[in-house]
């Protein structure tokens, strides 16, 4: 689905990375590895067309991604490295807002089971600002199910999670791939998630 050719990015006149090539078909999982500051987040944002690359081009379904931007966006879920839930609202409000703005056709019982497997079912009426770090992260990952898109672009989805949740993520990833979805994610650890390609930055 995505082909990245000879990508180089500069920020503040500093070259972050050079000549990155990547191709992602459906059912593929790509992991980005690399030291702190090697440009994983930057690469993900470049793929999302938020950062302009200085050299190189990105293709989506055979066409230049830039020409086809909103089609691309309607197929992608991006979860950033910092959480984006609205800390002053409750968990329930956040979920409702997401369900609405993403026009999600997921039904309530699905969300309930998801919350239960994530062990968040008791926090529905708690302010997000009062969740623990890992709980916030898990809540954020719920967006994967709510948005229900083909391509997942995830920045450090595994950090701050306990083993149980990581196992859950692993299963969700496999599930997604078996349904022709594809995933790019960055991580410093990889506790046994099967990946098709590993890119070292």
């Amino acid at each position: 689905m995505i082909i990245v050719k000879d990508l180089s990015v500069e920020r503040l006149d500093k070259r972050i990375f050079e000549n990155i090539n990547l191709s992602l078909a459906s059912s593929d999982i790509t992991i980005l590895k690399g030291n702190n500051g090697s440009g994983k987040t930057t690469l993900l944002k470049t793929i999302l067309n938020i950062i302009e690359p200085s050299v190189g081009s990105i293709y989506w379904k055979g066409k230049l991604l830039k020409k086809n931007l909103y089609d691309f966006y309607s197929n992608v879920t991006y979860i950033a490295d910092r959480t984006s839930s609205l800390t002053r609202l409750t968990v329930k409000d956040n979920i409702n807002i997401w369900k609405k703005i993403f026009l999600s056709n997921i039904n309530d019982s699905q969300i309930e089971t998801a919350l239960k497997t994530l062990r968040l079912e008791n926090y529905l009426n708690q302010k997000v600002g009062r969740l623990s770090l890992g709980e916030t992260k898990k809540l954020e990952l719920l967006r994967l199910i709510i948005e229900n898109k083909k391509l997942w672009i995830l920045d450090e989805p595994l950090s701050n999670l306990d083993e149980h949740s990581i196992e859950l993520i692993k299963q969700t990833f496999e599930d997604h791939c078996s349904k022709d979805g594809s995933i790019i994610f960055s991580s410093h650890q990889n506790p046994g998630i099967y990946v098709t390609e590993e890119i070292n930055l």
Partner: protein
Amino acid sequence: MKFLNKIIFFFYREYKLNLSGFQDILTNIIFFFVSILIFIFSIGPDEEVISLIGVGIVWALLLLSSTLSLKKFYQDDFENGNLLIIHLNGFSFGFIAILKTISHFLFVQIPFLLSIPIACIILNISDDKFFYLLTSFSMGSLTLSCLGSISSSMNLMNHRNYLLGSVIVMIFSVPIIIFSIGIINIEQNFNSLINILFGILLIVFAINPWASGLCLKLSLENN
């Protein structure tokens, strides 16, 4: 249809957010009334003077208190990444700017509009002037929302000096004030002045999406 739904739910989201930030709006309104009180005290009980400058005071205070809420315009959504999520959800930056401006108008300026009748009573502004005030203010405040959008999106790029944005908004709103006050004092010219105000509104409204959109794009790129 789908797009329309998205727009509706954008406003739903803004509504939820603003409701939890309802404090700010109320603070503005309270500020407004306390300042009116201050003016009444410093002028003394002379009713004529009060009703003479009442309209002016209302306008100046409206302007100042709408600069109060400027900082929240994009800042929060920018910092917690929601701006990006909304963009990925299919809205171009320019369009986000339009929606945000409208929701600022709806959720921040309109509540203010409601406090004008009370201010008119306190300040002895006559009923016929009240109508002009409301007309000119509703136009002027939409213009202010547009200007606010531009300046606060510019402020995202400039981490330092958030007052600069307010100052720029205020400078640009000087002509708006002059014309709006003009409307109230010279009643025969009402139509032509309203037209001018409307013209300014149209220009600013047309510039807003591209100026704000550009600033939003650039600031996300540099974040």
